[in-house]
């Protein structure tokens, strides 16, 4: 297992996290992934990258600092995203009952390890 894969696997150990991916922010394509069976990462990766890019533009337009964390809550779960180095993005797919606080901490730590 590569160090990158180990980093993603560690994020998925948080309760309720069904998958973690490293995504290229510019093109929304998956670079590496650790997903539970049946979880489709590509659509989430594309949408998360697009959301973060738009959020980045909106923040810049409003004179704010670039976004550091994105959390999108839906009826049956959530998507979390944290920018990492080299235009990469760490994305986690969470169940409704996931520990989002711990997932956020793990994501931020993991983003720091992606160098």
């Amino acid at each position: 297992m590569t160090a990158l894969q180990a980093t993603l696997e560690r994020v998925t150990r948080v309760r309720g996290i069904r998958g973690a991916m490293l995504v290229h922010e510019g093109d929304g394509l998956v670079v590496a992934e650790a997903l539970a069976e049946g979880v489709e990462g590509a659509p989430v990766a594309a949408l998360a990258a697009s959301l973060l890019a738009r959020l980045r533009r909106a923040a810049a337009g409003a004179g704010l600092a670039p976004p550091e964390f994105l959390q999108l809550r839906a009826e049956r779960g959530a998507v979390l995203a944290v920018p990492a180095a080299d235009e990469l993005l760490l994305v986690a797919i969470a169940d409704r009952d996931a520990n989002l606080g711990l997932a956020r901490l793990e994501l931020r730590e993991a983003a720091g390890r992606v160098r």
Partner: protein
Amino acid sequence: MRCVEPWVAGPLQAFLDESSARVTLLMTSSGQVIAQDGFTRSVDVMAAAALGAAIVASTDAIAQLTGAGRYGAVLHQGTAQGLYLAPFDTRRGRWIGLVVFGPETSAGLVQLFFRDLAQALAAAEPEARPGGVLLAENFERELNASLRSLFGR
């Protein structure tokens, strides 16, 4: 948007709305144009269809040579715009989509919505017509009819 096959229009319009693609071309694996959006000259669309079909045929040949079976899509990412080229199966045979997109969208989104387009086309597709014999004189007549449909002249 112009379509040779009218039932293609709905799914293609949904794809255009969602993907923000600049240019989209649907063609058969032999390069016959089914629908297009973004082209203004018939020469351009014919050239793009021929080249797109040739690229997919070439990658199929490389996939066979390397034992990869079949590749899903070809993606060229440039600085100003990207090109996504993907074949998909229909009851009428294998079709190919060629999509040119800019920084207002992304390869991931184009890939995502293109997959939706292929599924929507499969759902909307009427029963295939019985195939006729493809003769040289029929080919030219059908080509001219297609170009009239695509460019309104």
